């Protein structure tokens, strides 16, 4: 079943056409990769999905409803969570505070509860702390709840970003180059973690990645875009053999199209 469908997505920045008539369908509980050379429009696509850019034409259907006109925070609560290419944590807060912020949309306490610290406030504080511990343990950060995020190692910061995104209880998780800047061991750990997200939590994952080994191992489906257009789509083995994809990656001179 399709979880998300993008129909004819077009986005212009002045004279630059960042996305051109992009069609994309993401099936539920799959890992779907979007690859393409630098500047192909991958991040613009992510920004359109999360509501930070508004597409000029076309629409995005998520869970059977168009997300057009929704604010970023509404989309986040509706079930799309993301991580960032250049890690963007709340660097001066602790690990668990970062995760608890991810839960923000699901919390019930209001101003009154906060001022008078009602039983509901304590109940919720207790539950959020426990939930944060559970999520941190899932990504492999147990025992690091009270560390300031900026002091975590690079690999741990990437894990924390994923834990924070999971706290939103998303249906669709967008990972923007999760393996960037990692050594082979860390990359392998990230591979396993991403697979667990799909298999154990039943999440659908949309992945942007340059690391071909990661893409080919993880993906159930790959979409290749170049100059904002889809140039190929298929399973990893088919993509690897596609001449257009090879041309796009090696340079336009080799292209026959």
């Amino acid at each position: 079943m399709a979880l998300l469908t993008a129909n004819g997505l077009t986005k212009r920045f002045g004279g630059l056409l960042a996305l051109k008539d992009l069609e994309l369908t993401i099936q539920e509980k799959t890992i779907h990769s979007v690859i393409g050379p630098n500047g192909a429009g991958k991040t613009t696509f992510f920004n359109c999905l999360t509501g930070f850019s508004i597409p000029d034409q076309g629409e995005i259907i998520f869970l059977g409803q168009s997300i057009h006109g929704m604010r970023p925070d509404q989309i986040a609560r509706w079930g799309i969570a993301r991580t960032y290419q250049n890690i963007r944590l709340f660097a001066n807060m602790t690990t668990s505070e970062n995760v608890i912020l991810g839960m923000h949309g699901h919390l019930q306490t209001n101003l009154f509860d906060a001022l008078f610290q009602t039983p509901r406030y304590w109940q919720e504080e207790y539950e959020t702390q426990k939930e944060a511990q559970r999520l941190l343990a899932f990504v492999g950060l147990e025992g690091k709840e009270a560390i300031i995020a900026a002091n975590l190692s690079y690999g741990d910061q990437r894990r924390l970003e994923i834990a924070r995104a999971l706290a939103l209880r998303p249906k669709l998780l967008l990972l923007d180059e999760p393996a960037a800047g990692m050594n082979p061991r860390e990359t392998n750990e990230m591979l396993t973690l991403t697979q667990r997200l799909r298999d154990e939590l039943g999440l659908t994952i949309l992945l942007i990645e340059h690391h071909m080994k990661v893409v080919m191992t993880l993906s159930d489906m790959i979409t290749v875009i170049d100059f904002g257009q889809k140039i190929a789509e298929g399973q990893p083995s088919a993509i690897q053999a596609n001449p257009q994809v090879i041309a796009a990656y090696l340079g336009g001179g080799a292209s026959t199209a």
Partner: protein
Amino acid sequence: MKTELRTALRIGLLGGLVASHICLVGMLETFAKRNLIGDYLSMGYLLLLTLFLFVGYKATQVAQKAATGLLCAIIAGGITGASLSDLVFLTQNFQLREIFAHASPALVKLLTLGQSKSLGLLIPIVSGISWSLFGGFFALLPKLWRRVLLNTLLLTLLLGLLRDILNSLLPGDFGKTLFTSSGLTYIGAGSSLFCGGILIWAFLTYREQQKLKPETSESRNSPLQKLLFSLLILFLLTFPLWSKSFLSNVADSVGLYIIMGLGLNLVVGFAGMLDLGFVAFYAIGAYTMAVLTSPSGIFHFSFWQALPFSMLIAMSGGIILGLPILRMRGDYLAIATLGFGEIIRILVISDFLKPYLGGAQGITNIGKPEIAQFTFKNPEHFYYLILIGCLIAWFIASRLKKSRLGRAWMAIREDEDVAQAMGINRVTTKLTAFAIGALFGGLSGAIFASMVDSVVPKSFDLLISINVLALIIVGGIGSLPGVLVGAVVLVGLPELLREFQEYRLLVYGAVLVTMMLYRPEGLWPEVTLQHILHKTAQPEFPVRPLPTPEKK
């Protein structure tokens, strides 16, 4: 060696420049009128003395070997002293007064200790060298001793400055042995140095030991802390009963600034939005109170009836300001809020609103709060009202900080885009910060209007916004105790030192620059900020125990 000497030369010249400046703007003369210890050590001399000590300390610090360090201190101190001698020489032989009004015989007498020409010229140099040498020795002491000594000296200075408050606390005869008419007696200073030194030494060693132990819930609520806390409450509750009316007045201004500071801290400290127009809400609160209660108006409300309106209208002001500037960040936001503050002030003095707000003359005869038959009239009465206001503001700010909303504010402060991607509604979150902050500003303004009995546009200029912002930054941005400390230091101390009013802004500026250079995190900072600004490793925090749902 060569670079060290060059540094010493530079420090000495800078010291000389500062010293000459202090003399030529007349600070030395004014400050010399107040004797801090005995009849001899005046504030003026203390100023120069501190400068000499600092010069010696700095010069020694840059050197690697102790002997070179002391030599550097002698050179730097000598140069600083020599520039003062030079000043004396110039004043005696040329008509400096035509340019510098303060280069007078009185200044010469102060600098030469009243000695004759040639000997007099030597005195600044000799004292410069000797005090810098002390500063140099100070730099060579082990860290613990340095801290004990520094804190003891500061304590003694503070006791001398706060003579008025403390003397009214003590029974007459005892007070006379410790305090003179303006500062400490020699006995007073001696006992302060001795007892203070021992206490501070004990405290610092105790704290060092405590740092090694893991923090437990027991150490947080030790009997000592409970005792200190109860003493503080007793002090606050009885303050107007034993202090003079003048001091209650000072406490009232500090309190009003604390309420404002707590409000602005929500906006600037928690949500990270630089607001330079906070005075607008203070003015709205004050004018609402004035219009609603003044007999010249049409409403004739009582204070208590008008108070909620003051707060609510200020809050609406916050929302109205908040709406158009939601998308702005950083510098642009600061300029926009600055504009809002000015708009309110100019509206108030405009001819358009003159029939309602009284123009430049303002509004007088503002309603006083009454409880049963009791009317709040003088500063001592208002003290309690303001104290309650502070407590409520503190309660709200501290509870919000620990809530879901407080976390959302901090997320917006750290990274607005990511906060939105985490499902935080930017509009409502920012507006609540503005609204609650403005509410506190309105509360403070309403009490102020009733207390001084009249509102005039002049009381609501930009300087108030700047003051509130400065006290937050000096106290420690985002920190609640920081607001208290900042208000006491930036509002309370200058009020107590009224005799130096002329130099208030000069000292104020110097304090701000020094603070930002050496202690950018503020006097009572948030723990994490301290580590970030000083790039020190975070200590291993123990995992906080989970709060239990049963706890009420």
